[in-house]
């Protein structure tokens, strides 16, 4: 696999022939931190971000923990502070946890932006909001309710029991369930440790444990294909519906086979793209508090509400449209 070869060669090459230090190029230095590097969701964010960086001619540093880990996020931010970068953009694993480090960055005159998952308001200038936790939770739940006819049993597969954003979504869902879908019953929440295979096992168990389960909702990207595979193997395609967060590429085959009804996700590439543009603007003082609109390169204008730059409604990918996306 030559990408591998290339990476390794690059790694060694760069390490040995010690490249000119960062200062050498006088370009803006923007950093971007995902919750977890390995996560396909953020990899596609990076794709968009890289595109933006190329257009703007800024240096983009993309780094984060390999597993979602609040402590590591802080350490990396602190490292960036001492590297004297211009802008730090973070998808916060834990609101309070990260904020201490971010405030420190602001004190050093580094601009701070959050995307995907927000930190405390006073720890950043803007939050690139792909969709509020509430929006995601309600979106998924409404879709689920629609598919189940607003009644019956459904189950949820999460990343880990401790993942912050997941808990937040679940909280909103509980509220929504209570007030809007009394007949819809959440029978179980099972962790998948962000492992597709574990999600598959869990889903299998869920189905046999709850014979009249109508739907499985996976709220972590590896979970959705995992659950779908389980349903497919159980031969319950159509009988037990699968929805969840996920990237088109990982779910196309299941959507086409009719295992997965629909996958919800905002356009992650755009998210990355917008974030970098906003960051650059922030550094150049083109983006100031109080702005109500922001124009991001080829994507055109985005609305700013308060200190939230809104990416727009999440997409619902389904048979009809999923082939139009490649990320």
């Amino acid at each position, binding site marked *: 696999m030559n990408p591998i070869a290339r990476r390794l060669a690059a790694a060694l090459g760069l390490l040995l022939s010690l490249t000119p230090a960062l200062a050498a190029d006088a370009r803006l230095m923007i950093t971007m931190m995902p919750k977890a590097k390995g996560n396909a969701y953020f990899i596609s964010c990076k794709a968009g971000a890289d595109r933006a960086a190329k257009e703007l001619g800024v240096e983009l540093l993309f780094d984060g923990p390999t597993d979602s880990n609040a402590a590591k996020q802080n350490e990396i931010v602190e490292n960036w502070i001492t590297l004297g970068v211009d802008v730090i953009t973070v998808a916060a694993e834990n609101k309070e946890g990260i904020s201490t480090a971010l405030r420190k960055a602001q004190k050093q005159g580094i601009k701070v932006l959050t995307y995907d998952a927000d930190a405390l308001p006073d720890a950043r200038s803007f939050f690139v909001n792909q969709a509020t936790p509430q929006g995601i939770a309600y979106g998924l739940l409404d879709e689920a309710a629609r598919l189940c006819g607003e009644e019956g049993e459904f189950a949820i597969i999460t990343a880990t029991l401790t993942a912050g954003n997941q808990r937040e979504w679940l909280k909103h869902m509980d509220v929504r369930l209570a007030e809007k879908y009394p007949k819809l019953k959440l029978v179980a929440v099972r962790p998948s440790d962000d492992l597709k295979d574990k999600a598959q096992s869990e889903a299998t*168990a869920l189905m*046999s444990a709850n014979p009249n389960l109508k739907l499985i909702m996976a709220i972590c990207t590896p979970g959705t294909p995992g659950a779908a595979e389980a349903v497919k193997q159980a031969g319950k395609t159509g009988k037990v519906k699968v929805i969840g967060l996920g990237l088109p590429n990982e779910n196309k085959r299941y959507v086409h086979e009719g295992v997965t009804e629909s996958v919800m996700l905002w356009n992650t590439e755009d998210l990355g793209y917008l974030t970098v543009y906003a960051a650059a603007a922030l550094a150049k003082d083109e983006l100031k508090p109080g702005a109500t609109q922001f124009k991001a390169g080829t994507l055109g204008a985005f609305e700013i509400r308060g200190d939230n730059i809104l990416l727009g409604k999440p997409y619902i990918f389904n048979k009809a449209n999923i082939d139009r996306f490649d990320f």
Partner: protein
Amino acid sequence: MNRYFREISVTAALGLVLLAMAVFAPGFFQPQPLLSLVTREAPTLVVACGMALVIISRQIDISVGSQFSVCSICAGVLAARGWPLAVVGPAAAALGALLGAFNGVLVAGLRLPSIVVTLATMVMLRQGLNLVQQGAFVNLPDRVQWFGLSQAAGQWTLVGAALVLLVIFGLAMRQLATGRWVYAVGTDDEAARLAGIRPQLVTFLVFVLMGLLAGVAATMNIVQSPQVQPAVGSGLELKVIAAVVVGGVAISGGRGNVWGAFAGLLLLACVSPALTHLHVEAYWEKTIQGAIILLAVVADGLRQRKRGEGQA
């Protein structure tokens, strides 16, 4: 049959759990889902067999999880580039054997403590994989899944294959001279040397075998779904070690067998689905698994005390 007390007691415990499930959650036994769950554990069983050997020879290998991942991804990449499974499988096994051989050289050749050596290789392999793969899924062509057979056929093939391997190892460890040599080396390698056995060689081969089985298991895993995730197999090492130990293989070497490991694995593996069926909240899972491990060793301890071995 005092000699096989542990194996029997674990099997009994497993029986009890299954009985309880039959009473409180008969749904647990629907054939199809059960088959799927068992299939998911088939690769783990293969790895557990290897781990049993390693621990019987008084070593330990905590790098199996990483070996498993590396083999899975490489196998996946090869398959994705259109290599036939008939080539991919052996290739993965060979790669595993190679990784195992590396551990083997350090442990048997240089006589370094296996726990530290494999700790190092575990980190190196895992991080190396992260470096080159960056967490990206590998999508497999459709023909790969279930070896291109029907799903049921594929699942039975995998379960069958795992069980065949289990039986082979079960018999080999008891009936073949080599098998007994592993026990001999695990009990006292100097005595083994005097008895004309070559402990270094045996240890080395055990590690190679461990790696090979990890490779085989990886292949058995990737054919179960159309994608491979690089994070696959993280935490596998502890799961397997726990299973083997619960199954009555003594960490001090020379005692136990793969049958016990099999029972131990099943016991630990059915915790999660059992909880799901009993509608117990997921966050008790780790606690219960920990409790089972402790229970098993405590049972050992008490029994040894009764035999008055605790003394002196």
